[in-house]
């Protein structure tokens, strides 16, 4: 008993509860970003390299509506939502639909183009410097024992949880969800049952984009916004999806929280001379991608092997 406590202090275990809380918040944000990424992969069968950039653009729109146009938060949220729908549909019409039937490599190229277009447009309009959304008093920490948490962070974690419950209902209890699952698993067979793919693709893609924009806004409140932030979050979503198996929704969500835990603990725990500098937090996700691809490409957290 006493040895355990000794070890705990030696390894800096007293910060474990705080790290766990941080991990949940990071994981929640990743989950909000990655759900759309995974659904898009499942239904449209494309890796959308512009996913994080769409998130960034939506968050900047919200910044534009709240800070620069001084709209109230609900109005701005509605306006952002409407603008995001338009952007998502335009993305489908211009960057995805004309290409995906020719070669699976084409959407990779066109979404790369979209990513740069969005990043350069936002840089030109808003500048390359960081912008902050002001969360006011909800950014002030409240202490629970040894754990500090802000009301904003509670909002992030709770809304993410609500979203997961909603997604679970949507995917497993509604006709819409059954169609999404059918299309992700066996597109040709779904089409042979007259499951309307263009409309479903549009719905799934816009839904996923709106969710990620919500995440982007939360990131804007929690930290800040920058035109270059998109790529990093695409990579995080990718890492989570690789962990959970490509196109496997629940695996991906589990991957998001796992990634949150791994990142926070790897950087936060004091391993003495082997401590990882905080700058490597992001590299950790990329490293995970490689390791998983090397040992179990179908996903570390997917329990069932997918049959090709």
């Amino acid at each position, binding site marked *: 008993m006493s040895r355990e406590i000794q070890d705990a202090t030696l390894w800096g275990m007293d910060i474990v509860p705080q790290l766990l809380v941080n991990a949940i918040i990071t994981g929640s944000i990743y989950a909000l970003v990655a759900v759309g990424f995974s659904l898009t992969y499942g239904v449209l069968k494309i890796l959308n390299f512009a996913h994080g950039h769409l998130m960034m653009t939506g968050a900047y729109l919200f910044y534009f509506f709240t800070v620069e146009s001084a709209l109230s938060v609900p109005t701005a949220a509605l306006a952002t939502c409407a603008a995001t729908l338009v952007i998502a549909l335009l993305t489908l019409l211009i960057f995805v639909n004309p290409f995906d039937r020719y070669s699976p490599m084409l959407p990779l190229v066109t979404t790369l183009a979209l990513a740069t*277009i969005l990043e350069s447009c936002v840089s030109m309009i808003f500048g390359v410097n960081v912008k902050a959304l002001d969360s006011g008093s909800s950014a002030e920490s409240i202490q629970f024992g040894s754990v500090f948490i802000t009301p904003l962070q509670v909002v992030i974690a709770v809304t993410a949880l609500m979203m997961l419950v909603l997604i679970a209902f949507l995917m497993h209890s509604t006709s819409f969800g059954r169609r999404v699952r059918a299309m992700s698993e066996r597109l040709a067979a779904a089409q042979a049952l007259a499951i309307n793919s263009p409309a479903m693709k549009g719905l799934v893609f816009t839904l996923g984009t709106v969710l990620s924009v919500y995440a982007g806004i939360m990131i804007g409140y929690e930290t800040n916004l920058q035109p270059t932030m998109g790529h990093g979050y695409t990579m995080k979503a990718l890492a989570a999806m690789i962990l959970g198996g490509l196109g496997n929704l629940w695996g991906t969500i589990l991957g998001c929280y796992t990634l949150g835990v791994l990142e926070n603990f790897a950087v936060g725990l004091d391993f003495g001379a082997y401590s990882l500098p905080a700058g490597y937090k992001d590299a950790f996700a990329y490293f995970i991608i490689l390791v998983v*691809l090397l040992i179990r490409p179908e996903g570390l957290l997917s329990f069932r092997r997918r049959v090709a």
Partner: protein
Amino acid sequence: MEYIIHLAILVGIYLILAQSFNLTIGLGRMFNLAHVASYALGAYVTALASTELEMGFGRCLISSALVSGLFAILLGGIALRLAGDYFAIGTLAFASIVSALLINWKSVTKGVLGIPGIPRPEIGGVALYDNLQFGYVVGVLVIVSLTVLYFVFSSPFGRVLRGQAEDQLAMMALGRDVRLINTLGFFIASAFAGVAGALFAYYINYIDPSSFSFSEMVFLVTIVVVGSPGSFWGCVVATFFLVLLPEPLRFVDLPSSILGPMRQLLHSIVLLSVVWFNRAKLFPAQREV
């Protein structure tokens, strides 16, 4: 005049970089997103070797090529086991790790501050501080590199690389070791990217991680796609076209914070429109059996 020499050197560096990229993505149809990482490694090796170790021009060039080539073997060892989307993801992860190292391994790379004061190479006791003289050296290296790459493209090796892109199973059935050939293709492409990186470091005198960003990768994809993937001369023409395309912007009075994004925007719009008009022919899908 000085401006024209500057453009010529830039075009030369990109000729090597883009053509070597064309070898993997165009000829072999391997969607390798880590080519800029090879380029970055080449640049950093030369930057470090010439400042810290005071190594000469030839040795720097060779070390850059070797380090980048070895990186490709490591990369190929993992990524070439993967197919399709997984391949793109694997190479992207590799590229991201390299850029994370460049930013965070401060004791070696000096992080975002970058490495300043890279001396121009000395040849025969003359330091090439004059851009024209340096330009000649770049020119010679470009000609040598492109000649070698041209032979690779038209050699039996190049044909096998092209063949496996169209029908991997058929090539395996013909008794070709596709993995070995792809790895070798990776090695060659990456080594030349290393050479391009070395020249870049020498020319600019100062390198930092921002020169090797994700948008640089998109730029290379643009060059290869515009020049028609797998086409040697197409890639050469596209390099001239795309490196020079945003130059007129320089004469418009724009702040540099607008200029950079504007250039990226221009490139990606060119990329999109070329892909749009050639979508039926670019990257034809592997034949289904």
